[in-house]
């Protein structure tokens, strides 16, 4: 076999979640990405987030397109079904899957090439339809598997490994999502697990399309001096605007905040997201103000991170369609067919 299974060693001392499962139960096969790849840190954060919120592993549906990032859906929660589809088309698979069963938890993992070039159209339409899914972009500004071409998220002036500078303007997924009406828009950094884990949990709880754009340096092709997506550059220029704490329903709020510092946002299932403003000029519930501020900061080469915009009470894809609570894939056949009697009535219109 040319993929590696991780040996399951159940250490008796490993902590267990509410389902009695350990973190190991949320892992997948061994990563085949480069050592030090930012994507592996994101995989670890997803694993931690799922374990932490006691997600039933089989209820997680993992979807992806093509590219380094898209491979990672095999590297976490092996108890959930995975679908590694074709390049840039994961949003349509997600749309169909969600249409068929609205009860499961959907996570799509994509990259900057997969989302912003070949898949830009499907990405936009998944936002427009407000598909209830967590959509993560592992954004490194570069095509890894084909050895280092610029992607559509590469910044002007950022250089390739051999020194060639990029001259075309980037497409920013956060600004794109905001302008399309996305209801949960976040940015983070693969090296900041503390920020990433609660963001992922909040994204899962959001009813509708939740985007997390994660800056995730490519150690092999885009981690050199002159790159604006390297570890060094990102660490220096990322700037947390809003810190997010995820509070599950019934969980006691233990964090202490100064008065007026925290904006609690209640999700549809009663869980809460606490948005702690780090940057006092920032307002994460005002779409146009958020847009303007993020854009201004980007021009100054500052990546604002955190839950940058949220609109918690929204109607999603199924609400718009008027589908029942029961998933369409389990509606009994008797309810779907009008039978021979019904057919007689229908045929009378064609005589």
């Amino acid at each position: 076999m040319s993929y590696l299974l991780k040996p399951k060693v159940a250490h008796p001392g490993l902590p267990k979640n509410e389902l009695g499962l350990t973190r190991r139960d949320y892992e997948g096969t061994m990563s085949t990405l480069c050592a030090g790849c930012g994507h592996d840190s994101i995989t670890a954060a997803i694993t931690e987030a799922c374990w932490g919120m006691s997600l039933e592993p089989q209820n997680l549906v993992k979807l992806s397109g093509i590219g380094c990032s898209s491979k990672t859906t095999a590297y976490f929660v092996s108890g959930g079904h995975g679908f590694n589809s074709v390049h840039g088309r994961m949003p349509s698979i997600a749309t169909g899957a969600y249409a068929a069963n609205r009860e499961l938890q959907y996570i799509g993992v994509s990259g900057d090439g997969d989302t912003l070039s070949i898949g830009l159209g499907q990405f936009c339409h998944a936002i427009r339809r407000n598909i209830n899914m967590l959509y993560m972009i592992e954004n490194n500004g570069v095509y890894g598997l084909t050895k280092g071409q610029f992607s559509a998220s590469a910044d002007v002036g950022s250089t390739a490994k051999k020194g060639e500078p990029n001259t075309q303007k980037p497409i920013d997924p956060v600004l794109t999502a905001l302008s399309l009406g996305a209801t949960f828009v976040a940015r983070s950094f693969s090296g900041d697990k503390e920020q990433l884990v609660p963001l992922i949990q909040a994204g899962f709880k959001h009813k509708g399309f939740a985007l997390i754009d994660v800056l995730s340096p490519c150690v092999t092709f885009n981690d050199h001096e002159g790159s604006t997506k390297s570890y060094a550059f990102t660490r220096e220029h990322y700037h947390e605007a809003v810190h997010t704490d995820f509070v599950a329903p019934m969980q006691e709020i233990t964090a202490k905040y100064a008065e007026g510092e925290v904006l609690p946002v209640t999700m549809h299932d009663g869980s809460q997201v606490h948005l702690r403003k780090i940057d006092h000029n920032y307002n994460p519930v005002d779409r146009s103000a958020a847009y303007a501020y993020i854009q201004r900061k980007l021009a100054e080469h500052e990546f604002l991170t955190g839950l940058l915009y949220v609109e918690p009470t929204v109607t999603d894809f199924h609400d718009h369609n008027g589908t029942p609570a029961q998933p369409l894939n389990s509606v009994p056949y008797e309810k779907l067919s009008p039978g021979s009697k019904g057919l007689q009535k229908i045929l009378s219109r064609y005589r």
Partner: protein
Amino acid sequence: MPDRAAQERINDFAIKIATVNGTGSASANTLLMKAIFRMGVPVMGKNYFPSNIQGLPTWYEIRVTKDGYVARSGRIDIIVAMNAETYVRDLKEVSAGGYLIYDSTWPRSALLKRDDITIIGVPLAKLCNENFQGVRARILMKNIAYAGVLAALLDIDMEKLKELLNETYGKKANLVAANLKALELGHNYTREHVSCPLAMHIKPLDKTNGYIMIDGNTAAALGCVYAGATVGAWYPITPSTSLMDGFKSFCDKLRVDPQTGKKNFMIIQAEDELAAIGIVLGAAWNGARAFTPTSGPGISLMNEFLGLAYYAEVPAVIFDVQRVGPSTGMPTRTQQADIMLCAYASHGDTRHVLLFPANPEECFYLTVKAFDLAERLQTPVMVLSDLDIGMNDWMCPDLEWDDSYKPDRGKMLSKEEVLKLDKFFRFVDRDEDGITYRTLPGVHPKASYFTRGSGHTQYGGYTEDSTEYQMVLDRLKRKFGTAARMMPPAIIEQRGPFEVGVVAIGSSDGAVREALDILKARGVGVNYMRIRAFPFGREVSDFFDKHEIVFVVEQNRDAQLRSLLTLETPVEKTKLRSILHYSGLSISSECIVNGIMAEVGEGRSRITGAAS
């Protein structure tokens, strides 16, 4: 003037109505056809319309056929010329002894001149201008007025026409009144000025009991409802659009819970065909019966996903309502030119299951079959209809439904079944028929697997190992062999001990059947095989073995069906002779008769045997 006896054709003639697109003539034409149908007389209707909203010429052909033929004969007996722009070509098209009817508000006696046909002028515009107000009403009513003219000339039952107008516009009293008035205007004027009925006319029969008039897209949509499809995704494209329109309209009536008002279906208008097929695959992978209707350009776009569905073994139902290619081609004309595209869609070694309905009746039954096959075989199934079947109203026997039907979900393991296994592996061939077991997301952690279009092992893992890769690819080939044994078999009409055979698919069937009758009358005996599916069953090669020459009738330039037959059966290439028709109009019986006669007619009769 042609003599009346020569013109005598009762219940056996073709009318062609030439109008301007966007003037509302479609409802008048449907009205005429349905009235004849309700008189118990078999009828065929074909709409030749432009890819245009308003202004270009359009024609509608109504063939009255006491023998119940369903194709074009190739001849036109009556032209209703309502479009001055096409007078010249319309005049030419009438067969000798026929009639041309036109709007004589503006007499064109110099232009419309032929000694071997009868020209009838009715001042329709004048009549409508005198009786209706407003430009739009006058244009619309002119159509109903020519229906009145034809009713008088052909002895179409006025009561049936009125009954139909009442059914159509029943809720809008003023519309009913206006339409009835226009109908009477045309009818009365003609009765007063022309000797009615013509020698060519309609006499009531009782040959339409137990039949309906329905188009293939509507019938396929109904098939989707009965198959239990819940997710439909599409991107609008002529001529497939009315399939999803039909599905929506049926579901709005039949699939909305009366208590809650909730919809047990979802229709998704995708951003393009790439997304449409992606949505179908996502939904079907997740356990819903899902489909997409499209046409050739859509299939071209869907190729990549079709390869994924083949390799990752995801069921899907795709309707290709074929139109004229290549490229945009002629979007409102018919062809059978996507056969090769569909059979081997996508890169790499792929082969797909195809079904070829021949009429709306089969669109219904084969649609249900397509969903069962897709899930049984865990692969895309493409239903290759065409514009002629999809968008024209065909006379079909009443559709029937067996209430004992249960959808065949194929090898799908439940949670309980998975728990009984030591381990679940998605692609292990436990039954040695090439078909493996699948599970749905959400069932149990033990049931999970990873779906991918990259190289995979029979256990579902990623691989670049030659042996592991080939094991899966070889199994897929075995699965296609299993598929060949599950397909609806070809329908073979062994009419005699003849050495000549004809093969056809889909909408060519009606024309072939009529051609065989004509050939028989001329002493040429031919056997017939209509193929209904790909992969081909054994009976297809057996038919070839039993005949010296087999004509392959198809509606494309490059003999695609013949190519597929030579690739996929052991038949010698030279045995198969092509009869090709690719004008964009549906094939006529005349075309087939001429094609066969050219090869096996005079001097070649030794191989035809006696037709008895």
